[in-house]
């Protein structure tokens, strides 16, 4: 097996790379569409804005190989902005079309006096459904979040985990072989690494 990490030139690839490397998996950075042929798992990481990510997605012609990868039933993980890109569209920096792998859109978190935006820090993950990627991870653990936008699913069936910040938002989504985390597993110490390890051991079947 080989984990591919998509390079959208959006910040911190290195931490994601280091996490998989430390877990002992073979991992490479995907800079070219030819690399999609030999990877078994795809990770779309990202910190930054939706519209800039879409710009790089198009500029590097990544849309079609990602779609084909997902259609073949292989495991695909989106982290933070990478999770957002799985949506149909995002509202950050104007309306931009996403990958459309999971039904829904991305909009700004509502700001209230006691809940400043960005939402930064450790917050609780409430698993709603069981999933092979959650194996051995306790209910109610905290993971590290840092974001201003969130995913709104158009169907409850995609929601596998939620988190409260002023009000409840979706922190884990699953659609067949595609999974998305709003938090950063690569920054969430042992629980985060466990989730990444489980992802590597997942065959894409729920």
């Amino acid at each position: 097996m080989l984990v591919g990490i998509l390079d959208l030139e959006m910040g911190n690839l290195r931490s994601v790379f280091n996490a998989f490397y430390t877990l002992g998996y073979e991992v490479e950075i995907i800079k070219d569409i030819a690399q999609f042929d030999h990877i078994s798992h795809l990770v779309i990481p990202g910190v930054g804005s939706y519209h800039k990510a879409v710009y790089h997605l198009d500029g590097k012609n990544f849309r079609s190989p990602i779609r084909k990868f997902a259609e073949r039933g292989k495991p695909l993980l989106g982290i933070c902005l990478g999770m957002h890109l799985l949506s149909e569209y995002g509202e950050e920096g104007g309306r931009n079309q996403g990958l459309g792998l999971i039904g829904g859109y991305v909009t700004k978190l509502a700001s209230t006096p006691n809940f400043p935006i960005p939402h930064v820090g450790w917050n609780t993950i409430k698993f709603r459904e069981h999933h092979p990627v959650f194996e051995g991870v306790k209910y109610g653990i905290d993971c590290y979040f840092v974001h201003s936008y969130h995913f709104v699913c158009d169907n409850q069936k995609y929601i596998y985990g939620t988190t409260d910040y002023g009000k409840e938002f979706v922190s884990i989504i699953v659609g067949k072989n595609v999974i998305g985390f709003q938090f950063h597993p690569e920054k969430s110490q042992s629980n985060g690494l466990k989730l990444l390890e489980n992802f590597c051991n997942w065959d894409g079947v729920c």
Partner: protein
Amino acid sequence: MLKKRIIPVQLLINNRLVKTIKFGNYRDVGNPVTSSKIYSASDADELIFLNINRDYRTVEQLLTLIEKVSEVCFMPLSLGGGIKTLKDAEQLLKNGADKIVVNSASYRDRTIISQIADRFGTQAVIVSIDTKLNESTKEYQLYSNCGRQLEDISLEQHVKESIEKGAGEIFINSIDRDGTMTGYDIDLIKKVFEYSSVPVIACGGAGNFGHMKDVFLQTGVSALACGSLFNFGDNNPIRAKAFLSNYGLPFKVI
């Protein structure tokens, strides 16, 4: 529920870990990569590294460090000290940093904050503010360049303008309390919390866990940072959280 954070601050000179008292008289307290591994194992929520070399300060020093630390610590890492340009920030963020701490440069040209925020998001910029209380006027005065240069701007104005430009968090440090281990300056922290619409990290003066409790219970800060408390003595974030949890303060569940 969002949790309170405990953040060890690691001061660096030539990539050795040091600790100062009132921004002077530093002592060598170890190797930052080794100490980071220990902090990670002892449940710290985040790590902040500040390069305080006064004479020769380059981003390369921080780059060498972040590459090593990000291989062993899977937690949020913030770096600062001598960040002057977007390119400095970009290099660090590409190599494992999650946030950039800006201090002196924000007084010269506030657009450094917006440049980093536009490119990497507001969450990637922490504006750090060093202050001293002027005993005669009872006003807090701001200092740049590791506490050497007095700045002609009020605390309130600097906090508000920094946030307007895109600061995602404010890191407030008391020069008077630095390394004294006599407790945080709660009046200062209350003021900054009142001015700030973004999360506040308070630093300077922690000498025991009771000092941390006082700030958390009396102000709304999101995070407390400390150096000496963890550098000296058998204290670590696990013990701090065990103590603070008795007062109903929420910390991350692992």
